[in-house]
């Protein structure tokens, strides 16, 4: 079965097309997934920046109640998993979740280690390093962004107690639920699988059907007719409409006719000779 022309023609084409389409789809899916995650992270950073700008006035006036209300209200927004502000020492000073206020975060965990990996904490961090993905205690996949709150002239000169050498006053940390993003990715994955399967069925099926119609069926007939010496119905069918195979069938047919003629001539000749020999004796 594996040595037949049909298998030898279809298997390499099927393998090459299936494999290449699968490679392209998998690569495309990975690229699109990364792009969507990058977009979501950019949106998250924009939200974090908006929160920092919204709380700026309250921070300058050290209006803690106002600041707490802003954080609590934005934190209730659908899709926001956590929203908290750390001070310079890593203590949570404001949070949507009141129970975590006053807790100190571990500087070695992901999200903090980007700046705190060296002996001196980094003051500037690349945008992609401000982003992290993890599963929280409720099992929700979270995309979290940390936005540094920098010391400004107005902070150190006009109001309260921040010295000039404190470059970073604290950090705003926002976590967004990745559920909708995961749902979009799952839908995209499902659509790509359906599209890939349809493409494969059409390509491989189309090639197989065409090969079958124009090559394998006439070839089978050719094999059938060349297995006998007699002119069969299949041979007559094969004599036109199949291109080179029809030509081959016609050549074969004329060869058989010539062979039969030669045989008949030989038989006649032999019987003539016998008659002559019989007459002579």
């Amino acid at each position, binding site marked *: 079965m594996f040595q037949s022309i049909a298998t030898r023609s279809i298997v*390499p084409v099927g*393998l090459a097309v299936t494999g290449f389409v699968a490679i392209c789809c998998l690569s495309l899916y990975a690229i699109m997934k*990364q792009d969507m995650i990058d977009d979501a992270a950019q949106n998250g950073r924009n939200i974090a920046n908006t929160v920092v700008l919204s709380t700026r006035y309250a921070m300058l006036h050290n209006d803690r109640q106002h600041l707490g209300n802003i954080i609590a209200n934005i934190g209730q927004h659908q899709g926001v998993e956590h929203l908290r502000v750390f001070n310079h020492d890593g203590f949570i000073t404001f949070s949507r979740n009141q129970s975590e206020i006053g807790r100190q975060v571990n500087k070695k965990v992901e999200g903090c280690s980007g700046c705190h990996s060296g002996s001196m904490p980094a003051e500037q961090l690349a945008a992609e390093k401000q982003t992290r993905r993890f599963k929280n205690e409720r099992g929700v996949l979270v995309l979290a962004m940390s936005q540094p709150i920098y010391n400004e002239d107005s902070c150190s000169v006009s109001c309260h107690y921040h010295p000039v050498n404190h470059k970073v006053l604290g950090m705003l940390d926002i976590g967004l639920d990745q559920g909708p993003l995961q749902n979009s990715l799952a839908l995209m994955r499902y659509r790509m699988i359906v599209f890939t399967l349809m493409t494969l069925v059409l390509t491989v099926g189309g090639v197989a059907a065409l090969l079958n119609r124009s090559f394998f069926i006439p070839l089978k007939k050719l094999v059938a007719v060349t297995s006998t010496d007699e002119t069969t119905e299949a041979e007559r069918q094969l004599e036109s409409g199949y291109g080179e195979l029809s030509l081959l069938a016609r050549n074969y047919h004329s060869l058989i006719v010539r062979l039969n003629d030669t045989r008949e001539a030989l038989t006649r000749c032999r019987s003539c000779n016998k008659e002559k020999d019989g007459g002579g004796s």
Partner: protein
Amino acid sequence: MTTTEADSAQTQEEQRIALLVSIRRLHSRSHQGLWAIAAFACTSVPIMLSDRIFPPLAPGIKKMLGTPPSSNMISALLVVYAFSAILLVLGRITNGSPKMVSFSHIGYLICFYAFYYFSGVLPENFWAVLATGMTILSLESYHIWSLSMAKIKEEEETLAILERRMGMKSHVPESMR
């Protein structure tokens, strides 16, 4: 038996042994592609579990290696590599080239794994590299297998003729004679 007849019988026996050895060699060669696939699969398993097996790269090593290429660039290169490799194998199938399965593909694919790993996007792109490897190696394996099988058939036909001449009971199946 005369000396010439004895010499001829000896030559035929030598030919017969040579054919049997050749058939055996072709049989083992036809499975070479499967060894390549198995080797690639064995390499891919620890890479799939790289998150759990390998420790994260130290910042010092990351700094030493420099900025990794973007994942989009690696993916584009992977697609170009897959396209070229598949075309080359299809070309070899068309020409009936007897070139063996190239184990170098496994090396190239490991390089792709390494690049994705250093770029931090290996889990997302693991299946693309696996599909590339499986496609190229399966095609090569199929090519070598079908080529070896065709050669084995030829050799067995020659062996059947030789054994008939020697008046021996043939090792070759009835259908081949």
